[in-house]
Structures are given as structure tokens and as C-alpha cells.
């Protein structure tokens, strides 16, 4: 491979971590969904109730099922449907370690603006994840 096509250190590091995060996230999602579908673990909302509930807006769904917005779902993590959300969360979060991993590369090479941009992106995803903006109720 020539120097020109070899990915830069930041890209290579990001790609390596992203591959690990995505593959493990997808595998986790499939396994947890399998557990949910096969009824190995009791769900919070019975399968048979879903057709009447998935017609409702999300806010009504939460009311009808006794769940709350934000991170309230974690209180029911032992239920199969809620447990499946862990797989989804792992996908939604898997860019964060990648961004954190390339920040030292930018800092060490004096690219402070890129360092700050990465920090800002982590903060934006963190803000969205925190539930502080639009966290349900």
C-alpha cells in the first residue's frame, strides 16, 4: 500500500474502533431481539398488546405502559422489550469512543480546532443522550 492510500492516524484509529463498536452493537441487538421474540424473558408489554399500542403517539404509549421518558426505561431493564433497547443504545453511542480516541491525535499534532470540534460533537451527542433536551415528561 502506498503512503497516499494509507489512512491517516486519526482515520485509522476511528475506523478500527467504529468497526468494533458497530459489529458488537449489531450482534448485541440481534441477540437481545431474539430473546425478546422467543419469549425467553418476559416483556414489559405483551406481544399481543402491541397492535393496539403502536398506533398511538409515543407520549400516549408511555402513559399506557407506565413507562417514563428519558432514561426511565432503565428501571425495567429486566424485561425483554426494554432490554432490547440496550442494543439500540449501543449503536447510538458507538461514535463517542471513536471521537474520544482521536482527540489525543489532534492534540498531539497541535490541531486544537479539530480537537475542539471533536469535543463539541461528543458534547452534542451527550446532550441529546442526557434527556435534558426533550427528555419526555
Amino acid at each position, binding site marked *: 500500500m*502506498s503512503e*497516499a*492510500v494509507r*489512512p*491517516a492516524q*486519526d*482515520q*485509522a484509529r*476511528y*475506523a*478500527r474502533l*467504529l*468497526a468494533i*463498536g*458497530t459489529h458488537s*452493537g*449489531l450482534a448485541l*441487538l440481534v441477540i437481545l*431481539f431474539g430473546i*425478546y421474540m422467543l419469549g425467553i424473558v418476559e416483556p414489559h408489554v405483551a*406481544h*399481543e398488546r*402491541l*397492535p393496539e399500542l*403502536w*398506533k*398511538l*403517539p*409515543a*407520549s400516549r*404509549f*408511555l402513559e399506557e405502559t407506565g*413507562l417514563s*421518558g*428519558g*432514561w426511565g426505561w432503565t428501571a425495567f431493564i429486566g424485561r425483554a*422489550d426494554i432490554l*432490547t*433497547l440496550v442494543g*439500540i*443504545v449501543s*449503536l*447510538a453511542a458507538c*461514535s463517542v469512543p471513536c471521537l474520544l480516541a*482521536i482527540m489525543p491525535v489532534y492534540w498531539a499534532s497541535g*490541531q486544537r*480546532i*479539530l480537537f475542539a*470540534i*471533536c469535543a463539541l*460533537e461528543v458534547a*452534542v*451527542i451527550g446532550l*441529546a*443522550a442526557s*434527556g435534558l*433536551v*426533550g*427528555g*419526555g415528561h
Partner: protein
Amino acid sequence: MRRLLALALAAAALAAAPEAWAAAALPETSMPWWGWPLALFVVCFFLGIVAVPAGVGGGVLFVPIVGGFFPFHLDYVRGAGLLVALASALSAGPALLNAGLASLRLALPLAVVASASSILGALIGFALPTNAVQVALGGTILAIVVLMAVAKRSEYPEVAKPDAISAALGMNGILVDAGTGRQHPWQVHRTPAGLVVFFLIGILAGMFGLGAGWANMPALNLLMGAPLKVSAGTSSFILSLVDSSAAWVYLNKGAVLPMIAVPSVIGMMLGAKIGAKLLKVLPAAIVRKLVLTLLAFAGMRALLKGLGIWT
């Protein structure tokens, strides 16, 4: 023969959506609870097959088609659409970065702006009445169809001089043509305009749960002057960050139902793998026209559904 088989598969793929429409018209009691996730998986599998040769993102097909013809509330369809687009973008990311087809330095500044605005878009989507979101979705889908039909592409746009921001951030690189081995240095310009456009793209992505490749590509390629392949790869990479932010808002609002989201993600990803394999044998231009026609129909359906004309 192989080409015929592939075409038949593509036609079946496009026919899958009407099957779902017919199913949607059935009395609700005739479909057991597991029938809908199964139908969703099948439709998404076929959408994944045609999305690749048509050059259309799965998310942009998913939301209007599933939103228009399945019994799910639009909140969950938008949430699942974001996850479909997110999972596809995350999966493609490592290969694109390693091949130099996605540029971190080009993506990061644009992604920060679009990520922040996607949160705003998601909140707007939840604040508006569902009918208003349906109407806006229909209008947006129809506009996307027009954009996809008329937008030109430039393999290696001419960028005489980078702007100050892109120069400061090192938004440049060298693209190596895999066929010829020739190196094409590239740089970008009009970064301030690009940032404004990506702010708007983020709002649309968050509001409707659409993957935004249809908008990212022309913005990177035609506006900022990135080579076509770099634009395509970087567009996908930007989606992985933008949709992450918006997906969290949907999760926090309770708008991610695993029974809807997971079959969609798995179906679309498996279909896309088949679609990529059929890329050489499927007549891409014909498939693209068929998919755009289907998208126009779904957009019209969303518009009429929102207006209460076709419920």
C-alpha cells in the same frame, strides 16, 4: 439469464411494497401481532436490495413507505427510520474511512452543525401535530424525488482555491482511483455556505427520521467541490454522527419500539448486502427510475394522508 433473474428480483422488491399496502387494508384482526414485524422485515429486505443499485439511502425509502402503508404511528416510523440509516452508515464507516473515501476532517465540522440541528429538528417533529408532520414529510419526499431526478454530479469538481475555514481545518486529501491508481488531490471551498446547508439538512434528518444522503451528496459535491466518491463516502459518515444525536431524542421520547425498529434494521442491512452483490447485474438506471417512481407515490401518499384526503 443472471441479469433476468436479477431484474425479476428487483421487480419483486418493488412489488413488495404494494403487498404491504394490500395487507394494510386488511381488517386489523386478520393479522396476528407477529405478522406486522414479519411484513416489515420482508419489505425492508426488498427495499435494501433496490436501495443500493438505485443509489438511494434506505432511510429515505423507509419512512414514507412504512409510514404510509403500515399501521404504526409516525413517531415510531421516524425513530426506526433513523436507526435504519444509522446502522447502515455505521456499518459502512470503517471501510470508507480506511479507503480514504470518507474524510474525517471534511466531515467533522459539518457533522457538529448538523448533529446539533438534528436535535432541534427532532424536537420540532415531536412538537408539531402528526398531520402537519405528514404533510411536511410528503412535500419533502416529493422535493427529494425532483432533486434526485435533476441533480447533476461532478466526478472531480474544480476548486481553484480553498476558503479560509477549509484551509485552516485541513479539509483536503488525495483520492486514489482504484481502477487506474491515479492520484487526485482535492480540496473544498464555500465552507460557510456548506455549514448553513448542513444545519438545514440536520433539521430535516431529525424531524423526519430520514437519512440525509440525498442532501449531503449534492452539498459536498456540487456546493463544496469534493470529488464525487469522497462526497458519497463522507456523506455516509456524517450520517453516522447526525443520526446518533437525533436517535437519542427519539429514544428519550419513547419513540423507538424494538418490535418495529429491529426487524427494519436487520431486513434493510441484509437486503443491502444482496443489493451490493447484484450491483453489477441489475440495470441500475431502470431500478433507479422505478424506485424514484415508488418514492414519488409514497410522498404523495404521505401528503394526502396528512391532508386527510387519503387516510
